[in-house]
């Protein structure tokens, strides 16, 4: 195998073999998220940034016991989100939403957003076509 192929193709194969076939995988691995588990959080949008390489949704949710906790939810890049119907105004601070996420394996307050239920009841996918591959 030539040096060019070795340089370019092997890493790409590695990404696929590493189980990171997510739409957002081009930038980094998603191994830190528990793809076997889905959490549903009901909370209030703190901020939404539709930016490269990953967009971010911050949601304040109330834990069991009544303590408010903020979650940092990672999403695809703006092009991916646009294909799913997102705009930069899809959500705004203060919106009451429900989000389905793959939480971080270590239990910290982060996760991969799969889809969101907006205040008007509409659903928007964030990375659901790939997330559905997981059981």
């Amino acid at each position, binding site marked *: 195998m030539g040096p060019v192929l070795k340089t370019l193709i*092997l890493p790409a194969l590695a990404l696929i073999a590493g189980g990171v076939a997510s739409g957002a995988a081009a930038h980094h691995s998603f191994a830190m998220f528990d793809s076997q588990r889905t959490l549903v959080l009901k909370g209030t949008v703190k901020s939404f940034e539709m930016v490269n390489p990953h967009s971010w949704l911050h949601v304040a949710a109330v834990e069991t016991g009544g303590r408010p906790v903020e979650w*940092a939810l990672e999403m695809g890049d703006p092009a991916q989100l646009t294909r799913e119907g997102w705009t930069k105004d899809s959500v705004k601070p203060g919106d009451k939403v429900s989000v389905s996420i793959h939480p971080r394996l270590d239990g910290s307050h982060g996760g991969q957003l799969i889809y969101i239920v907006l205040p008007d009841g509409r659903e928007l996918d964030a990375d659901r076509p790939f997330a559905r591959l997981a059981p």
Partner: protein
Amino acid sequence: MRRAVLAMLVCLGLGAPAMAQAPTVWRDYAYPEMGFLIQFPVAPSVSTGTWPAPGGRTVPATVYAARERGATYKVTVADFSASSEDRAAIMSAAAAAAGQGGEIKLNLEAHVDLQFGRQLSIAAKDGGYGDVAVFMLGRRLFVVEGRALPPNADERTDRIVRFVETLSFPNQPPGPLPASVQAQFTVEAP
């Protein structure tokens, strides 16, 4: 006088919730001379220092650091160009150092922009919580650390997660594959 004090108290009382709710503005900080980009919640300071190399020596390092809302954010870039230590040994030592003084909750192989390294989460003995990424590009070691400080560190883990996850190595050639990935492929000779 009483009115003035009362007015001040009212203003403080009204302003406090607004200040508490002000969202952080994360900004890109690009360092093309070092080959990386990351988002900080506030402007980092830049300083120089040293990094412990395997074998008890030290190598020069540049540190980009910030502190905000009970969390610290730091990128250390250590220059191993004048040393001959093995890449894997350097990264292993860095990962081990990151986990010192706490319980490692997560230690995963990770990649960012086709660079392969490790990502760790550490519950510190003092009640703090850390998210750490270790990468090596050429002879440069990158240690990215977000630390949520006690007390109530778990209320800020979203912030350190956000910090470490924004690490990027734009316009860099792909790094060498780790042995664990290479082992998954059989490459035929042309």
